[in-house]
């Protein structure tokens, strides 16, 4: 598994002892505002650490989400200085500008409170893109043998480590323009299943991902790929879906 660059990068502005960080946090819902807090600056501090500090010491009612703190669960994504990021693996040193960080909820999702967004639509779209596996075997059958070096398996592998953080979705302009667009994560998930040779719902899936709200709306500019903390390339997955749906359409199988 490729490790996140956040971890490997050197601290660009190492913390001095006693230093503080000015943090603007979004408070409230759509009609809220940024509120500034002063937070002790610590070595190797992450953006999530900062939010947690504010919640523990200043605002017990601050709403935000996290679970694993190690980049696995995908629940901690926020907009940091205007860019969607996973906050538990983003060091303050990477993002602070003149000792200041601004933290807002993810874009393209309805706000619930403070830094929490409603992710329902995001995950409903996975379902709409047929992001679920449909198999033919039962527990009584032999295991399917999928060659690890087959092209399909490699394509599935490339997209499989998605943690569902929504960073790509929040970074996609097409989602902003047309809210019914399935978005990079759901389409990437569908692509991994299109490449799963055991799956039996391929025709239905291609119908689900093609068209105006699906892969054909993607502009291929790659904000999703640029921002994905897991270094997945949804842009490539979507291009793959375009190719496969075109092939199906030519054969009259769409």
């Amino acid at each position, binding site marked *: 598994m490729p490790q996140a660059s956040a971890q490997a990068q050197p601290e660009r502005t190492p913390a001095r002892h006693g230093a503080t960080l000015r943090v603007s946090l979004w408070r409230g819902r759509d009609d809220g505002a940024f509120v500034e807090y002063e937070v002790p600056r610590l070595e190797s501090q992450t953006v999530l650490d900062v939010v947690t500090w504010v919640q523990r010491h200043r605002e017990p009612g601050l709403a935000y989400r996290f679970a694993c703190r190690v980049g696995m669960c995908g629940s901690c994504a926020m907009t940091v200085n205007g860019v969607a990021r996973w906050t538990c693996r983003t060091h303050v040193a990477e993002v602070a500008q003149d000792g200041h960080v601004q933290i807002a909820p993810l874009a393209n999702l309805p706000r619930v409170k403070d830094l929490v967004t409603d992710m329902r639509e995001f995950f409903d779209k996975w379902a709409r893109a047929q992001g679920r596996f449909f198999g033919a075997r039962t527990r009584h059958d032999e295991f399917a043998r999928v060659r690890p070096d087959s092209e399909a398996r490699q394509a599935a592998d490339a997209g499989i480590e998605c943690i569902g953080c929504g960073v790509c979705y929040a970074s996609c302009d097409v989602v902003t323009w*047309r809210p019914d667009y399935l978005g990079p994560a759901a389409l990437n998930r569908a692509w991994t299943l299109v490449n799963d040779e055991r799956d039996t719902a391929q025709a239905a899936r291609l119908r689900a991902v093609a068209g*105006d709200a699906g892969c*054909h709306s993607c502009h291929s500019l790659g904000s999703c790929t640029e921002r994905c903390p897991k270094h997945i390339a949804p842009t490539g997955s979507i291009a793959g879906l375009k190719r496969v749906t075109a092939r199906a359409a030519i054969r009259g199988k*769409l």
Partner: protein
Amino acid sequence: MADVVRETRRWYWQRVSALVLALCVLVHLATIIYAVRSGLSAEAILARTRGSVTFAAFYTIFVAACAVHVPIGIARVAEEWLGLAPRTADGIAHALALLLFVLGMSAVYAMVAG
């Protein structure tokens, strides 16, 4: 469902026409550079293009690829930026395709037979 097939076809034709255009543009540029650099006069150029089956065939393909490629892109932009309904956008695209083809072919005709 119709939308699924339409969008997939659009993408396909956009891709195929882009491929043709990429080749055509290269040949077209090379031709222009050749004509300009060797200082050919308008008469000299016409003398070469008149009655040339190759010239006619090549530019017919070029014009056709433009007539396919441009309207698909315009329809998409119209849908996304102007919020046009797909049917309206399709209508405009078809009219534009016809216009481009007629204009392009009249130019080819003028070079070959005019």
